[in-house]
């Protein structure tokens, strides 16, 4: 049956829960493209025959093949686009540097897209209202309290808070720190927010 490979691509993404990025299925894409090439060539020769010899009985099969071509195109672009949306979500989750195990699942063009997206987003944030700009990937949750209890997950060395006090972030030590100073470190995995 035609189009089975492309449906398989869509199913693959649907099976995997949102926010996860499976490995880029280069082989699947290649097979769909090959199928499209074959369909297209067959159609070309049938069209010529239908025109040259007036064989109107070929027209239904030409139409069928054309529909399959369109469907394949649509499935492949949907597959690629859905992956882009997942990659976009990763930028907001992990920041501008992706963990290597995720990069491993992306093809080189996807990496290019990601880098360009990063750049566009950075340009946007820099140009928001005034010279300094605003990092809108911060402050993801409404602030509840000024200070939060954090635990150090790895040695990070000395850390200066706003009023000039320097504290030593040692592994397994616990601190009570201003939230706006730790948000970044929490996302980097240096600190952990202790919920009591």
């Amino acid at each position, binding site marked *: 049956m035609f189009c089975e490979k492309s449906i398989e691509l869509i199913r693959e993404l649907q099976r995997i829960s949102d926010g996860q990025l499976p490995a880029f299925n280069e082989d699947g*894409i290649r097979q769909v*493209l090959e199928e*499209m*090439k074959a369909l*297209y060539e067959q159609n070309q020769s049938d069209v010529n025959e239908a025109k040259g010899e007036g064989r109107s009985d070929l027209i239904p099969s030409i139409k069928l093949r054309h529909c399959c*071509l*369109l469907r394949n*195109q*649509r499935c*492949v*672009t949907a597959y*690629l*686009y859905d992956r*882009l949306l997942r990659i*976009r979500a990763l930028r907001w989750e992990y920041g501008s540097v992706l963990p290597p195990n995720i990069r491993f699942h992306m*093809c080189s*063009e*996807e990496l*290019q*897209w990601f880098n*360009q*997206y990063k*750049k*566009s*987003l950075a*340009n*946007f944030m820099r*140009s*928001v*209202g*005034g010279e*300094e700009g*605003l*990092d*809108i990937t*911060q*402050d993801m*949750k*409404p*602030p509840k309290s*000024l200070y939060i209890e954090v635990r150090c997950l790895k040695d990070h060395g000395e850390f200066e808070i706003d*009023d000039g006090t320097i504290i030593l972030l040692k592994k397994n030590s616990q601190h009570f720190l*201003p*939230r*706006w100073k730790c948000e970044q470190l929490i996302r980097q995995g240096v600190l952990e927010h202790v919920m009591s």
Partner: protein
Amino acid sequence: MSAALSDEGSDQNDSQEDVMTPVELIAKLEEAWLNEKFSPDLLENKSEVVECVMEQLTHMEANLQRVRKGDMKASLHRMEIDRIRFVLSSYLRSRLQKIEKFFPHVLEKEESRADGDPSYLSPEEYAFAREYLANTETYLKAVALRHMPPNLQTVALVKAVPEPCLDSFVFLRVKERQDNVMVEPETDDQREYVVDLEEGSQHLMRYRTIAPLVSTGAVHLI
């Protein structure tokens, strides 16, 4: 949330030419934020509010530097700054999300708008949307489209990317009384009818019906 800001902002605002007080400014920001968060479509940009709030935040940060350490007032103001910054970031984020989600439609709307009409995108957002479109097109072309048969090498993104669903229902609160709002039928056996929206009343309606009222500020989404 704006109470603590007002006593601090009042002495700075004298020098500025606009008459908006910080309280009004924050109220405006909150309104824009809630409307944007709950509407299915991208609303007009409020870049002047964004700029003013950014300025206000910088002022407050600067004022905080002068307060002596351990002052109770300082931590209250710090909390205030955090809250305002959250609202502002969240507002810009939800706009950006919509731009990304509906980019072909957003750009089409922006480019077909007549001169003099208010623009939906701020210049920064417009630049972002253009880059996003170009980036995505380049990507699709490089990976798949250029390997396809010659008649299938383009994709009409306007058709392929879903449009904002204007028929989704939204909660709203009426700020200015509206008479004779036309409600279109939902099913074939219903007829269209008119409702009056009393000031202060709350409703659940389709966004399409009240979209113009949201942009004039006569109703708020909640």
